[in-house]
């Protein structure tokens, strides 16, 4: 009631400034490098952590560094009150690799992230091929061999509120 800021925003600022060193705190608009962001416990063991940083980063060098505004963007996209469209939009951007659609290579990387990053936790070649064929058969409506944003949103709309796409500080 004392400010217009929500509790989440105040907490976000506190966590962000904790990661900065003493001198950087004095400067406005500092940019945190990706390694420091990845020390946050909510992101540390997430297999998509590097992609998340790249997606929300606004730096020209494309190195995944975040300012405080980028950090707030990240938290707001992952919050409870974000709509399904916003969440599915960002989820799609996290999954694909800069060419606009999810092709076989992107899907393979995605499945490897989901099952584990070491060699013994991966699916075999045959299983991976079969899985990717099944996914494309189910979600590729226009049969162009890739999953674009609308087809992705079509799949997501079947899960009622995509509730697992959430990070809370």
């Amino acid at each position, binding site marked *: 009631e004392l400010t217009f800021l929500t509790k989440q925003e105040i907490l976000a600022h506190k966590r962000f400034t904790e990661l900065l060193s003493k001198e950087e705190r004095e400067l406005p608009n500092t940019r945190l490098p990706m390694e420091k962001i990845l020390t946050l416990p909510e992101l540390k063991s997430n*297999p998509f952590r590097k992609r998340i940083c790249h997606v929300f980063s606004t730096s020209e060098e494309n190195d995944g560094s975040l300012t405080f505004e980028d950090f707030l963007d990240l938290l707001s996209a992952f919050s409870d009150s974000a709509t399904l469209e916003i969440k599915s939009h960002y989820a799609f951007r996290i999954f694909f690799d800069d060419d606009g659609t999810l092709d076989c290579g992107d899907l393979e990387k995605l499945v490897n992230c989901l*099952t584990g990053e070491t060699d013994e*936790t991966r699916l075999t070649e045959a299983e991976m091929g079969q899985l990717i064929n099944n996914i494309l058969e*189910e979600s590729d409506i*226009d049969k162009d061999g890739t999953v674009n944003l609308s087809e992705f949103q079509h*799949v997501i*709309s079947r899960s009622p*509120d995509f509730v*697992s796409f959430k990070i809370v500080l």
Partner: protein
Amino acid sequence: MEFSYMFYGFYNNTLVEDQNFSYNLPLAYLFTAVFYFAFCFICIIARSVPALLLSSLLLLLLLIDILQMCGCVQLNEMSRMPFKSLSGEFSHPDPRLFLDRLLSHRMGSAARVAVATGGSAVGNYSMIVFASWDYGCLGDKATKLKQKNIRYQLQVDLEEEQLKKKAASQTLNQKIILYSLRISMFLLANGFIIAALYGIFEATNFSQERSRQAGILGLLFEYLPSIVITAGNFVVPLLCDQIASIERYGPSTTVIIALLRSVILRLVSLVVLLLTLWRQVTCNGDISSDDCKLCQYNHKLYPCWETRVGQEMYRLTLFDLLISIAVLVLVEFPRRILVDSWSSKLAQWVGRQEFVVSSNVLGLVYSQTVVWTGALFCPLLPLISSLKFIIFFYCKKITLFYNCRPASKTFRSTTSTFFFVAVLLIGWALATAVMVYSLAEIHPSLSCGPFRFFPYMWVIVPNSFYALSKTTQEFLFFIGSQAFSIPLFLFFCVVLCYFIALCSVHGKSVALLRDQITLEGRDKQFLVKQIQALSR
């Protein structure tokens, strides 16, 4: 303890009458037992039916919504907006999505899971890959566990698909070999189950003959049926698991068959126990034999047979609780301490105890069936079993968090919820059959209990019926007569036909909407090709 309110034998055939107050004890006893059964049945139905009904309704709504989105999807595809401009894309209004979200928040997770995983028809793999990662997972262990679950789920689905393809392409020879192997394993599994049941039969006979011995040996003989039942419930599923690995069914079929065998074993062992008791009480059903001629039940062996049956059920319940606590203290805690502190290869291979959901749930269903069966003969048994379940819950919670690791095979919750409710209802039906038979067929004991001088327990109801006022009697006669019951029956038939028609209409519209979705996809493909042709 026989001579307390706990068992049937203590209650008297009393009829308390005062100026404004009369209490007919036999009638009250009967109605309490019947009401308890009816109340449990209503509770089971009330908990399980709404979730199943609502889930089918939500599936219909979601399909309508997908169709609407397909219509808007064409426009977005053609405009190809750059990804940073969020404002333009999220423009179409969403009353349907809002309604879905509202309904799903009200319905709870069971229905939501039912819709999300219900039916392998639409988008199972895509859903798992795109939407199943939980971004709130904190810590390495949780992440690894989630990854293992997802991998297991994908592997199971893929393996089943492979098996289906392989089964369709087998030669005749291979099929014959496979089926003969399966039939022989089926007979072997049934042989194990029948052996266990025969063991229970012999143990019950033995225990009832030697039941009057004093001291520790007497106590052991009293608890012999419970011991044999618990041992059978432990050993036979292990053997059936080994058999299942030879049978080579698909993964989910294996799980379902293992569950079915467990359920049949537990419920039929209870039936065998009850049948053995019945044989002894009624002298094999032969009322004119020597022992049973006088009182129509075996009064030499059982001066008060209802109390004996109640005692048997009470012993089963108590023994179940004691064994669970003993296993917890003597097996699971030491196992965990051993595995954690002794880091040899053997300890790692044995590992911590796995918490298997299905066998625990079946154990609960079995305990509840025992309680229902004994409710007529041991009126305080439901209270005791409530206490038992509370203790059981906290013990299992402690052991789950400290001793167990999560099961490596995840469990599909939709079909299994329906399955466990069905098993619970079968247990309830069994207990009701026992109660009805005892009320209507067996002669109550002459030396104890509230139904002392009646030929059957049910006789109290017609007797007190005639004590009611004349108008009440006429009203109740009218309800029971044909002039009322046949129109009522016809009305229920009409209601049933209405619901069946509604269901088939829903099913047809679901199929129709699915066809429409594929048609929309083809339309979109055609339009995209046209745009590409025009832009050249």
